[in-house]
């Protein structure tokens, strides 16, 4: 197994053992990190690999949350099925927006504005829709004494922690599998230059729709979990613009276009947000958390626009098999920061290779064919 799989295994194992000694509050705080990481991975599939910038992911999150909660509360549908339906709902809405946008070649910042418009449109519809409780909110009943977490998917902090850890690990594995498959390669071609990719036979329209649908579906599942754990849903809190913005910050701080970036970003951004909120609360200064969060955001994007993970990965020699290159102005105005390539470092000089010398395979099972 390559170093990446080892690092991933140790990371997940450590998280799995953590609850042995951690307090409930630490577990519920980490559960929030997992939810943010889950959405980060979903958003990153669409942005980091297929190059489609979405600023309305709260729409899928909210739809997922309401779907699972209403099915469980009003129709007694177990969340096991609820999550599947939520995935389908999120994917379907994402497909609608994607098809509309791609069919009419809405690209770059205009596509981002299209996603914002749909998300805000959805939020306002939910705020005036009595079936979902409107702004009055939708509430799950308290857990009865006979509640079985594995059936109702609702339990204490420990259950939520493990449930989210399992979901996150699955989503992470799925994203790795997809990105390293033919689909992932072709996504990156679309991301770098859609027209050139199409000339090479890449069915851009269909593949972009796949990315958008997968991203929407996974985000809906994260929403479903958030609804079950939170117990009370408000349109502004699960569908609001502030949420859509929070979702993109973690992957960008972590490093988009990489496989571990969104997770690292979530581990940085969510505790930071919570810490600054508590600091503001303790100091009694309202809005201090916004100030700290804003300053840090600007600092990160000015200092390390490729995000934290590429920088760290190089130090740990965990450079990902997915060869990508730090952000440059790509043709359609959306370029991607990405981790370092297999051999060269970020600034283009090939590392210690002279003409004619067979390329040294740094690591990992790249092609076994030796060149002449």
């Amino acid at each position, binding site marked *: 197994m390559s170093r990446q799989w080892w690092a991933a295994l140790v990371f997940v194992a450590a998280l799995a053992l953590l609850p042995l000694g951690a307090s409930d509050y630490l577990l519920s705080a980490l559960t929030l990190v997992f939810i943010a990481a889950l959405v980060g991975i979903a958003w990153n599939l669409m942005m980091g690999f297929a190059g489609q910038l979405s600023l309305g992911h709260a729409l899928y999150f909210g739809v997922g949350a309401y779907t699972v909660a209403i099915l469980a509360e009003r129709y007694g549908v177990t969340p096991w099925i609820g999550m599947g339906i939520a995935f389908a709902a999120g994917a379907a809405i994402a497909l609608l927006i994607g098809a509309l946008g791609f069919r009419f070649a809405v690209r770059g910042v205009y596509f981002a504005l299209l996603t914002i418009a749909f998300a805000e449109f959805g939020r306002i519809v939910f705020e005036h829709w009595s079936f979902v409780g409107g702004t009055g909110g939708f509430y799950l009943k308290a857990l009865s004494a006979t509640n079985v977490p594995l059936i109702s998917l609702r339990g204490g902090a420990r259950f939520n922690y493990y449930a989210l850890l399992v979901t996150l690990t699955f989503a992470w594995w799925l994203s790795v599998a997809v990105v390293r*498959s*033919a689909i992932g*390669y*072709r996504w*990156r*071609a679309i*991301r*770098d*230059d859609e*027209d*050139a*990719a*199409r*000339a*090479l*036979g*890449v*069915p*851009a329209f269909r593949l972009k729709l796949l990315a958008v649908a997968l991203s929407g579906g996974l985000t809906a599942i994260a929403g479903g979990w958030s609804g079950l754990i939170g117990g009370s849903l408000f349109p502004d809190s699960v569908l609001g613009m502030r949420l859509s913005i929070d979702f993109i910050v973690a992957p960008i701080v972590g490093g988009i*276009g990489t496989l571990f970036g969104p997770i690292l970003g979530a581990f940085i951004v969510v505790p930071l947000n919570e810490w600054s909120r508590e600091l503001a609360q303790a100091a009694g200064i309202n809005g201090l958390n916004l100030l700290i969060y804003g300053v840090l955001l600007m600092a990160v994007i000015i200092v390390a626009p490729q995000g934290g993970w590429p920088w760290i990965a190089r130090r740990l020699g965990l450079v990902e098999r997915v*060869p*990508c*290159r730090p952000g*440059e102005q*790509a*043709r359609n105005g959306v*370029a*991607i920061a*990405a981790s370092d*390539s*297999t*051999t*060269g470092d970020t600034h*283009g000089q*090939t590392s210690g290779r002279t*003409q*004619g010398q067979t*390329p040294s395979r740094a690591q990992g099972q*790249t*092609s076994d*064919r030796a*060149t*002449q």
Partner: protein
Amino acid sequence: MSAILQLKGVTRRYSGLVAVSDVSFDIEQGSITALIGPNGAGKTTTFGMIAGAISPSAGSIHYEGVRIDGVAPERLCAMGIARTFQIVRPLQGMSVIDNVMIGALNRTSNLKIARSNALDLLDRVGLGTKAFEMASNLTLPDRKLLETAKALATGPKLLMLDEVMAGLRPAEADRVMDVLSAVRAEGVTILLIEHVMRVVMAIAQHVIVLNHGELIARGTPSAIVTHPRVIESYLGTKAIHP
């Protein structure tokens, strides 16, 4: 031999300016045809229309008997039409081998096969040693070679090359010409736009000449070079000898 590609009265207007007007010609299966003409003659626009990037204002294009004008580029590629871009468009965020693999994935979804095909092609065009470089690191000539390799990787029946020899050193140009001849021997039809007359004369069996968007002459290279209208369009009055 049947004609693999037919253009019938193909025209392209840009709000008043006629870039290509009423061009018709056939391309024989398995031949190497060169499309030449002074700058602004409409060569790249014609190319773009065949490759599906530009939709013609009038006329029709047929490939293997099927009408293809207006068909999306990716479907044309699946049908076997591969093209390179005059202004090279490497996939910046990816390595050289990944660039070629994207083309190879047009024929197979198995990554291993795609990777080995890509490496073979890179060797044939002489980029084997730079397989794991980032595409954005390459020099312009290398990027031209990459364009050719990517187009070949899609397993085309009709290969369209837009000035792939421009900027190549003679040794590299010869290598590419050997590759094209070998590919033609494997049954691939080649249509190339080229200014380097040495290449046109060496490998082209047919030559089509465009000027101001009109087809002014076609025939074997030796006939074209002495054709009065061609000379006049290129050099005005003075005749040139090979």
